[in-house]
Structure formats: C-alpha cells, structure tokens
C-alpha cells in the first residue's frame, strides 16, 4: 500500500464528508445551537447555586457534550449513509480500502466537532462574562489533539457498529445522558458513588474532559499525564476494534453483495 495514495484517499474522503456535512441542517443545529444552550444551562445552574468558580469546568463539560453529540450524529452514520445512498458497493470496488475511506470521514467529523468547544467558550464569555483563562495552553492544546484522535477512532467504531447492529443506533440516544453522567461532564466525578469509577474510567470523554479541565486550571487533583496516557490507550483500543469491525463489514458486503439485509 502506497503511503502517498493512502494520504490522498484520506484527504478525498475527508473533503467529501466535510462538503456533505456542511449542508446538513441537522448537523448545523447540533453543532451550533446545542452547545450554546448547554452552556447557558450548566453555567446558569452554577451561578444560581453560588458556585461561579465552576463556570470554566461547566463550559468545558458542555463543550465535551457537544463534541460527543456531533461525533455520534455524524460518524454514527458514515457507513449507514453510504449503504442507503448505494455508494457503499462502489467504495468496496475502489482500490482504496474501506478503512482508509471511513477514517478520513471520521477524522473530518472529529475536527468539526471540536468547534463545539469554541462555541461553549464564546457563550460563557459573552453571556455570563466568565473570565475563561487557560492556565496551561500547551497542555490544553495537547489535550485537544488527543481528544481529536480518540474521537476519530471512536467514530470508526460507532460507524461500523451502528450499521451492523441497528439497535445500537437507538441505544446510543438512550445512553447519551448516562455517558455524560459517568464521564463527569459539567460536574465533578467525585459526586458519583465510588463503585461507578471503573465505568467512568473506561470512557474516553472522562479522560478528555479531565485533561482539558486540568490544563485549563480546574480539578487540581487530576493528573494531565495520566489522562493523556488513558486517551492514547483508549484510542489504540478503539482503532483495533474499528479495524476488525470494518474488515467484517467489507467481508459481509462482498459475500452478500451489499448490506441490504442489515
């Protein structure tokens, strides 16, 4: 496999996804409007509760919620949309492996999803006049980068999973809020019973949120290095899982001539 070819195919599918997504009303709605509302809500509760010092944490948590939602909506359907549009077979027939194509699409979605964080920061600053200073910008940037990688790999997994198990798509809308809860998005993990901690630690948003918050200057007792490591480990795990899932899909498509039965 030629690296130049692979990068070019990655870029091609990245572009296709970006173009298709840019004109999708539902995406624009979830990307722009939801993070604004989530910030208004979560920061508003803290201010009313007399804890404005939690504003920055809430802004980051609302951003992570936005990032998660965007990836779920967009990458969750990367395979499904190709199946519905009749292009999946053409992708299988192309010399580029399906995995590379889906990776390009998922990366494109993950990058766009990061906008949610910018939106929640802007909302917090403009509406609630929060002083949102990032204590350690370089560590924050590193956390963003690792979040991006983790979300890209996760996109690969959910994109395959949603098409192989239709119920997974439905389940994900139910499991959205439990994941926000378990990941401690907008409130500290310590509020949850201790026996839930293993579940929390197995989720990428937990670590992404922790890395971002710690480098921004909140959550004094969290470790940046540990959250970096956890994000890298989970990304590798998602990648391996995604790799096998995509292989499975490619085999099913070739054996049955499509995913029509799915």
């Amino acid at each position, binding site marked *: 496999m030629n690296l130049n070819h692979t990068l070019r195919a990655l870029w091609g599918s990245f572009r296709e996804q970006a173009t298709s997504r840019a004109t999708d009303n539902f995406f624009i*709605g979830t990307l722009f409007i939801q993070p604004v509302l989530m910030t208004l809500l979560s920061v508003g509760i803290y201010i009313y509760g007399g804890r404005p010092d939690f504003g920055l944490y809430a802004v980051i948590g609302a951003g992570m919620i936005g990032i998660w939602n965007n990836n779920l909506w967009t990458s969750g359907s990367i395979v499904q949309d190709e199946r519905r549009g009749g292009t999946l077979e053409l992708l299988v027939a192309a010399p580029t492996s399906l995995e590379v194509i889906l990776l390009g699409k998922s990366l494109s979605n993950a990058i766009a999803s990061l906008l949610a964080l910018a939106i929640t920061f802007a909302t917090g600053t403009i509406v609630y006049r929060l002083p949102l200073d990032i204590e350690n910008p370089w560590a924050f940037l590193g956390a963003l980068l690792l979040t991006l990688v983790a979300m890209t790999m996760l996109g690969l997994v959910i994109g395959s999973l949603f098409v192989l198990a239709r119920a997974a798509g439905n389940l994900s809308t139910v499991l959205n809020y439990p994941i926000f809860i378990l990941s401690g998005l907008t409130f500290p993990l310590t509020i949850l019973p201790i026996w839930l901690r293993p579940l929390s630690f197995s989720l990428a948003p937990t670590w992404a949120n922790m890395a971002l918050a710690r480098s921004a200057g909140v959550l004094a007792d969290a470790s940046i290095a540990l959250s970096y490591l956890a994000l890298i480990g989970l990304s590798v795990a998602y990648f391996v899982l995604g790799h096998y899932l995509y292989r499975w899909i490619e085999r099913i498509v070739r054996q049955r001539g499509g995913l029509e039965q799915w």
Partner: protein
Amino acid sequence: MRLAMRTFLAGARASLVMEASDFALPELLGTRLPRFILQALFFVILAYAAGGPELARFALIGNAMGNAAITSLIMLGISIEIEKWAGTLPLLIAAPANWLPLMIGRALAGYLEALLGVVTTFVVLTPFMTGFGFAVDRLLLAAPLMLFSVATMSGLGWLLGSITLPMRIGLLVSNMVAYAMFVVCGVNFPVEALPPALQWVGRSLPLTHGLMAIRAVIDGASYLDVAPLIGLEALIGLVYAAAAWLMFRQRLRAAQLTGNIELH
C-alpha cells in the same frame, strides 16, 4: 358541535393508533421513556453539584415537567410533519369538517405520553432524593396543573409546525426551541437568575408560569394562591394557539392557491 366532536375523536383515534403501533410502542418504552428519565437524572445531578439537595429537588420537578411539556410540543410537530410527508394536507383542505378539532385530537397521544413520562420520572428518581422527597398528596394535588401545562404547550407546537410547514427543517426547529425552553422557562433554576433579556423570553413562553404554579402547589400553596399564575399560563397558551390557528389557515390557503400538494 356533534360534527366537531366526531372530527376530534377521529384525530384522537389516529394519534392513539399511531402511538400504539408496532413501531411506536417499543420506541416509547425502549428509547423515549428511558431517555426522558436519564436526561432528568443528568440535570438533577448537575443541580446537586451546583446547589445541593434543594436545587436538585427544584431540578427534578422542573425536568419532569419540562420533558413532558416538550413531548407535547414535539409530538404535535411530528403529527404535522407526518401529514406533510403523507401528503394528506390537501385532504384536510378538502374535508368538509373543521380541522381545528382534528388537530386537537391529534395532540392527545402527546399528552398521554407526557403524563406517563412525568409519573415514571417521579417514581424512579424520588427515592434518590433522600431528605428532600415529595409528599405524594401534594404531587397528586398538582397533577391537574401538570396536565394543564402540557396542554398549553400545544399552541406553540402547532405554531412552530405551521411556520416550518413549507421548510424541511420542521422537526429540527421544534427540537431546538424545546431545548431552549429548558434554559429560559425556569426548569433547572429560577427565571430570575437569567440575564434580563432572556427573562423576558422565558416569561412570554408557555410552561414558565405553569411550572411556577406547580412548584408552589407542591410546596403547600392552594389553587387560589396560584390563580394569577394559572391565568397567565392559560392566556399565553391561548395566544399561541390563536397565532397557530391563523398561521395554519394561512398555510392551507397558500397551498390551495398554488396547488402545491407537497407544500415544499
């Protein structure tokens, strides 16, 4: 009047049949209802983190009701959208019956689902509210008010559905408005805590005053005490319903004039 009653029943039957269909029922029990409860749980924990048990209790009442109101709003949006997709709107124009009772009937399944959501949310989440639980008799006393607040949302739902009728983004708009109401209608924290401009938005929407009345009754107030709030809620609900009626009639006329069956 008898004809109106019959069209109301026809609409109600249609909405209930769709609700009970093979497709909708598993989705209600497997997806919508759990989501209803889990979303409330998320905000209750957030409120607990921000302001302790008392704010958590505030958020529980608010989210149970907020979710219910929004169910009613979105269900109406969906039924208008279904009419649009099914291409049945021209039939509404052509039907001899007045379509107003039909639309009210169509909203009925939304009310039932909303009420089911409120009850299950309270039943599932109240045990977690140690020390700050609810007196069952006060909750029951507030129940008619809950139903009332759910019903006042129909006007807004119908208005949004009518405005977005020729567009492809109807459900998106209803969803976003519904979400925004969680911010401005005093669901998770009192309206007074909002920036002044947003306070005005909140006070001009249905649900806000109804929710205030419900909270007051649960905390021991009598219906007489909250009569002004009920009156305001009713007034706001009616204003939106009237606007919706005019808008919908306008849309049907426009469709009749242009002969555009699909309306988009």
